[in-house]
């Protein structure tokens, strides 16, 4: 088992209407001091065994991300370490 996470975000210069709508809503929840919100996709893949980095890159390029408007980063997560402290 190997876990791969592909994070896909709109390129910085591309309009992110979602992020904007959320940013505009924050004050109503009493949250201030937020200068930018960007919303992308997190894609978690489980492989039977660790894949070739190149395979994953190609996958991201051709299917998971839309290189015309999106950037992505690939991270190979070892099963121990969690992606962030769970809430």
């Amino acid at each position, binding site marked *: 088992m190997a876990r791969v996470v592909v994070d896909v975000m709109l390129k910085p210069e591309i309009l992110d*209407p*979602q992020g904007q*709508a*959320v940013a505009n*809503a924050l004050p*109503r*929840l009493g949250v201030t001091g937020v200068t930018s919100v960007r*919303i992308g996709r997190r894609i978690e893949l489980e492989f039977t065994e660790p894949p070739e980095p190149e395979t994953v890159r190609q996958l991201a390029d051709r299917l998971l991300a839309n290189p015309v408007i999106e950037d992505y980063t690939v991270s190979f997560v070892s099963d121990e370490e969690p992606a962030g402290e769970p809430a």
Partner: protein
Amino acid sequence: MRIGVVTFPGSLDDVDAARAVRLAGGEAVSLWHADDQLYGVDAIILPGGFSYGDYLRCGAIARFAPVMESVMAAAAAGAPVLGICNGFQVLCEAHLLPGALTRNQHLHFRARDQRLQVETNRTAWTMGYTPGQEIVIPLKSGEGRYVADTATLDELERSGRVVARYVDDNPNGSMRDIAAICNEAGNVVGMMPHPEHAVDPLTGPSTDGLTVFTSVLKHLAGVAA
């Protein structure tokens, strides 16, 4: 009877809901998302559309609109509240109804004339139907797949709170073919298909939807009497 129709930024079927109320013989009162009161309306409709662009999650941002405070209070006090499509999503996000509406299983927005079975007339918005009655009204949504955990689903079934189900084929993968549900009291109903688009033979597939609006007027008359 005065029925309020809330307009959020991005609401689209608000004009249609208001028209349906008028055709049913009620008075439609338009409510603005920023209002801090309900101007004494007897019932409230959260219409279809793409409030706040459906960004983040459908209904997630609208749920925090100022007017929702009053709507939640009115719902708790027993006022009839109907959420249609996006309105249903808002009601779930606001936890006035259990469960959630997620992306259609086939991943496409789907607009079609949908056959439904009305399961119960023990709600303010369906009392004019006979249980088991089949109706055809438009469905148009990309995130109409109702989901909830098994316990919740069983509870909905047990307490007769599944208001309508899809018949023939399930258009979005909705659990237990659920098209509409209500709260315990039956005054708050969420419905994915659009009854307000089946009120005039000229523009709809049927007039089956009109009963939703005559029902609430009848209910209110009963309450008043």
